[in-house]
């Protein structure tokens, strides 16, 4: 505490002071600047622990399992990250995914069974954008906290799906959607002779991550999103169109949710209208574990991806060391508290003296 106090002590105008300030902090400074390092450390620690307990963990198929299991959560998480960076929060994305995936599956079965797979994806993305933009529009015009708005729209979207679209499972997917889930990118033979394959749809996640990284780091929109999360009033005052930023972040998250929905259907070869909704907290947890503050204005794509991996690894590999699946939540919960406590104490030290 005292070191933060003295380095904040004014040597006004002498910014070389801030240079010293960085040198003096070393590791703590690195963690404060790159909170995702904590996530990475935690991830590596878990992997080592599991590998020691059960060497079967160390084979390519584990990696493939984790990769496959990360796609849907990862796409959701990228959307949540973008909204968190802008100072908002979204809990409706799972409902957007459920509504679009189920409606499009029905549409394909009943009206356009021969629709090419890329059209299916385009419609899903368009549907996701439409629903997301509605969120953004409501948040901006009603000036209501986005948590409240998206709780409302989550009920609305999901209620609409179950009331008007359908409640039955669709086991027989239209041909193109069924096959897409099975096209594989890589195939491995495991020690016990079974084949595991990394499906092509896995590529959607890194592609979306790179696109998100590019938008957030390299475009004015990305900077405007962080600005909005840092200080909404100032952002408007500096000439940024705050309305467009709202529509963009929620629309973008909607698009990713639409994508995630279709991936979910093709991967499971099943369209279940009751799926997905209820997983939002795990996704938000992954993003926060990746170093994004719930209060907005921070975070990174790398961190978000690490957070997702952490949650997926805990979900998938604890079984391998004999920890029952009921304990997974205890672990995720403990990690969240640990990370939160860690980040908050760092922030407190960094808060400038007023």
């Amino acid at each position: 505490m005292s070191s933060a106090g003295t380095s904040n002590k004014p040597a006004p105008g002498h910014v070389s002071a801030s240079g010293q300030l960085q040198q003096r902090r070393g590791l703590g400074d690195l963690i404060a600047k790159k909170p995702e390092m904590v996530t990475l450390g935690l991830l590596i620690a878990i992997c080592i622990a599991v590998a020691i307990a059960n060497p079967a963990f160390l084979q390519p198929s584990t990696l493939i399992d984790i990769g496959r299991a990360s796609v849907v959560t990862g796409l959701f998480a990228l959307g949540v990250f973008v909204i968190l960076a802008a100072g908002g929060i979204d809990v409706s994305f799972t409902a957007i995914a459920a509504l679009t995936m189920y409606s499009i599956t029905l549409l394909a079965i009943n009206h356009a069974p021969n629709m090419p797979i890329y059209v299916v994806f385009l419609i899903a993305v368009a549907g996701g954008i439409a629903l997301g933009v509605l969120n953004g529009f409501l948040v901006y015009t009603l000036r209501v906290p986005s948590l409240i708005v998206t709780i409302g729209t989550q009920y609305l979207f999901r209620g609409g799906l179950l009331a008007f679209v359908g409640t039955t499972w669709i086991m027989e997917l239209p041909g193109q959607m069924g096959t897409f889930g099975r096209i594989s990118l890589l195939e491995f033979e495991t020690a016990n002779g079974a084949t595991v394959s990394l499906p092509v749809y896995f590529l959607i996640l890194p592609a979306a991550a790179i696109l998100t990284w590019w938008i957030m780091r390299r475009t004015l929109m990305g900077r405007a999103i962080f600005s909005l999360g840092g200080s909404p009033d100032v952002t408007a005052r500096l000439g940024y169109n705050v309305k467009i930023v709202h529509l963009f972040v929620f629309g973008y998250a909607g698009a990713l949710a639409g994508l995630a929905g279709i991936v979910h259907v093709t991967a499971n070869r099943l369209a279940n209208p009751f799926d997905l909704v209820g997983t939002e907290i795990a996704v938000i947890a992954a993003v926060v574990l990746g170093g994004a503050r719930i209060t907005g204005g921070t975070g990174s794509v790398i961190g978000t991806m690490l957070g997702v991996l952490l949650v997926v690894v805990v979900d998938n590999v604890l079984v391998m060391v004999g920890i029952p699946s009921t304990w997974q939540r205890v672990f995720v919960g403990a990690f969240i508290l640990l990370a939160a406590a860690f980040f908050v104490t760092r922030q407190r030290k960094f808060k400038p003296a007023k």
Partner: protein
Amino acid sequence: MTQNTQKNRCFLELRNIHKRFGGVHALRGVDLSLEAGEVYHLLGENGCGKSTVIKIMAGAHPPSEGQIVLDGEVFNELTPIQSLDFGIETVYQDLSLIPNLSVMENVALGEQLVEGHGRLLRRIDRARMQKTATKALSQVGLDVTPELMSTIVSELPLATRQLVAIARAIACEARLVIMDEPTTSLTRREVENLIDVVSRLRSQNVAVLFVTHKLEECYRIGGHAIVFRDGQCVAQGPIESYSRADLAELMTGRQISEKRYREGSPSEDTLMSLSNFSMPGRFNDVGFDLRKGEVLGITGLSDSGRNELALAIAGIRPAASGTISINDKNIRIATASDSIDAGIAYVPEDRLSEGLFLSKSIYQNEVALILRKLAGFMGILDMKKGKEIAREISADMRLNTADIELPVSSLSGGNQQRVLIGRWLSINPEILVLHGPTVGVDVGSKDAIYQTIQKMAEDGMGLIIVSDDLPELLQNCDRILVMNAGEVVSDLNGASASEDDIYQAMLGSVQEGAA
């Protein structure tokens, strides 16, 4: 560097601008014209409409009535991006930096935003951003290093942030630079640097509009004075043609500004004695005596430790070491209630968030501290007695309403402040610590608050005023302690000191430290 050989012409004109916020008429028909290459000083008391007029020029608020003319083009209102497009750059009083972005981004991103007329789906040209930021930052006198460029603004000391805000305003090809109190946390040398920046802007035919309370600086820089009072422009002309007294009178509309409220003198008895009071990194080895009936001022720059000292005396953020005694009895202050029990009342700086229950009535606010006294059988409150007390307090504090059931939010800033002070008087404290007692308060209320302060001192209370409003301290205090970098560096006599003396002490050793 576009050398405009043409004679100075009007760049910006305001015609009959009115602005209302709900029931408040903040601007009442302002006419103003600013010419290229000229320097203007916008003067006026707090709440006279200075900030509002700036925000209208910057496009942050639309006017309720009237027109804005830019280069002959007439607008009913401006958006921020239009205003920036015309080259109007503003250094806001709150600096308006984006706390979570880097220095480079804060300084130079605006250029690319304005060029695209606000379009956001564009790639950032990082090389150009770096070039623009480097140039602007070195112009304001900062040592441009890669670390500085990538530092997140919220990690910078206040003075550096102020320079960054100024750098942002001059980073683009500005035509009018508005600076709202740009020198509050700058050292002398940085102020000199700023004055150089201004003359450079002027030679590039850029208009500069200063908003400031520091008259010495206005006279040094020279140019035109524009004086606002109650939302109107009451005078405009070359600054040399006005004396300080003229300006003060124009700003207040009466000749009260130089009047000294303090007439009495303290008794000989020491009421409170502080010694070796320290909190590492905030204030160090502070000691002073407060006598009965004394009004003691404490001032310093915002990071001098004065605020922390006040909070420590009030027990809100207790000091790490040191002793405090009241009436020769040593006491320990670890929490706010320790300090209340010891007879110390503290009226916070930010009355809205720290002091008042805005949606509750005047009555409920005024009796908030004496609820225990009002509680009778099984804790049931004696409302009738409470209301009686509240009525008395309201009358003592000369509130402008007799209706104690009104919510506090319906009162003006000055009256709210009086409710807050009145609440503390209900527990008859021996010592009253007032933190920025007249921040955001109108002239009339100021007068009433100062009279109350003096009356309390006459009744034998010891008062401490922590404030950066220098005239306020000079008008009210017996002694003024000036803090700098956590230490009391000067103990001035309130009757004989001048604003300049205080400034010297506030800035003096910072200067030494920086050199």
